[in-house]
């Protein structure tokens, strides 16, 4: 039993709403999709390039409004670009998105309209290079807080988010691309889901007692549902991903797993912040006597 002040939390819970974990999903989907789009471009897989670039543009187009709505003063969203601060993952992310969003949307627009193909290829290349960073910086964003379940997982969360992003991007591309061209999407989905589930397991083990929120309660239930969706989606993609209806089912499951993973991590942070023992316990061990 840890001493505390009337059992009250020491930390403040985040003020972020569901828009933020939803953005973690859409942003991760956009980032990994743009990387897949670039790979498809380099290997001459035009059908996969089209669906991947389309998913990247759609993901980033939804991300912007989600991020702006969550601000306490949405009209001041441009203040995000007032300074550039490497100590603030949100500042780094804002600048990343400022470069990534036009490239991802421009690449898809060029592909669909057939206009400015060279510029479109350059934009797809730019978005594809930035994509992996867009998909993983959000893990640093949550880890760079005082919340134990987030901060102490800072070595695993980027891999969890990378795997989750790949599973989502692979799932969308798998469901929307003709089977003959969707081989890379199937493989990416399976690798991504494996990394997502693996990183989550490693994270829980490394966190030890601090893993409680990821294993029990609402966040724990979300994590279990995420794992079930991701694993069944990956299995379906691997064994029956060449057939259209099963490909769509697999893609839906993979996206659901990816989305649930982010909501589980998000919710776990609130539960961890609310528990004074999670804050005090580890600090007591390292307190100088």
């Amino acid at each position, binding site marked *: 039993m840890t001493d505390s*002040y009337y059992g009250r939390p*020491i930390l*403040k819970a985040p003020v972020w709403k569901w828009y933020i974990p939803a953005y973690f999903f859409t942003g991760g989907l956009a980032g990994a999709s743009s990387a897949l789009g670039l*790979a498809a471009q380099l290997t001459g897989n035009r059908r996969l390039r089209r669906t991947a670039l389309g998913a990247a543009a759609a993901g980033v187009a939804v991300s912007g409004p989600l991020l702006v709505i969550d601000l306490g*003063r949405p009209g001041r969203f441009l203040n995000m670009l007032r300074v550039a601060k490497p100590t603030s993952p949100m500042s780094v992310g804002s600048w990343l998105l400022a470069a990534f969003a036009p490239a991802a949307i421009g690449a898809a627009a060029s592909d669909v309209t057939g206009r400015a193909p060279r510029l479109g290829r350059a934009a797809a290349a730019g978005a594809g290079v930035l994509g992996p960073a867009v998909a993983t910086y959000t893990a640093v964003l949550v880890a760079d807080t005082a919340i134990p379940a987030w901060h102490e997982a800072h070595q695993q969360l980027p891999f969890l988010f990378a795997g989750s992003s790949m599973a989502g991007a692979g799932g969308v591309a798998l469901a929307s691309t003709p089977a003959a061209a969707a081989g890379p999407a199937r493989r990416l989905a399976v690798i991504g889901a494996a990394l997502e589930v693996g990183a989550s397991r490693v994270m829980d083990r490394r966190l030890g007692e601090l893993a409680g929120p990821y294993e029990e309660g609402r966040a724990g239930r979300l994590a279990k549902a995420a794992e079930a969706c991701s694993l069944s989606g990956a299995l379906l993609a691997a064994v029956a991903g060449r057939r259209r209806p099963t490909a769509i089912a697999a893609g839906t499951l993979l996206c659901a797993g990816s989305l649930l993973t982010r909501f589980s991590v998000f919710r776990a942070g609130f539960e961890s912040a609310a528990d004074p023992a999670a804050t005090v316990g580890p600090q*007591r061990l390292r307190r*100088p006597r």
Partner: protein
Amino acid sequence: MRHPAGAKGSLMARMGFFTDTSVCIGCKACEVACKEWNDVPDDGLDFLAMSYDNTGALGADTWRHVAFVERPRGGSAPPGSPPANGPGAGWSPAADLLPDAGGAGVRWLMSSDVCKHCTHAACLDVCPTGALFRTEFDTVVVQQDVCNGCGYCVPACPFGVIDKREADGRVWKCTLCYDRLKADLTPACAKACPTESIQFGPLEELRERASGRLGVLREAGVAEARLYGADEDDGVGGFGAFFLLLDEPEIYGLPPAPVVTTRDLPGMWRAAAGAALALAGAVAVAVLPRR
């Protein structure tokens, strides 16, 4: 008030608070003075059933918070015996501070909490707009005309100090009365404190005064007395507003060994770079031509 030769080459001395909880009487004049001077909105009239504390915690609308801790005395004197500091009990200035002073009853700890104005301030580090900044007094203040209410500082603070004012959309916390400091005035809470539990001044001077006070208390037998946040080598580089406590920090709702989250940020970026490379590698493997 201002000293020409401040620390770290700044022109002015670092200003701060020393809150000596051993002389706090729980009058809450600091809470009231802070609200009045800074025009802080009400934070709800809730009965919290926490001793005399109906304020609860620091937050967007609470920049000073007086904690009331009731701890049973260590000794197990028979019921009805006179309190240790009663008439004829050999009263000493420290008698009612001793956790194991004989006699039944309750030992009251009172402490006025405030923003720590950390040397390494997580809120300031993670703020993406630059709204949070370090003033010429080495205090940490939110520029309300810049804050866009992203809320990142809220879970970054290891003390749970800063919070968002929902109706307003922006974050708020103690400014160490930045406006008063600029006019060479003492912050409202310190000015109002009737027992000089809240002391304001150049941090160097406050630290000397605090170690002197700690010595007096220790000599009087208050072994539990300790300084909290006076050490520059702690996880946040020392507090600009530090404390003398009479029990473990967590008893007062304070983290025992807080660390600024950005201390681990280089490692986080390295992990993210590794994960981004893994993502790129997985995509490359996925598109490799099959045979």
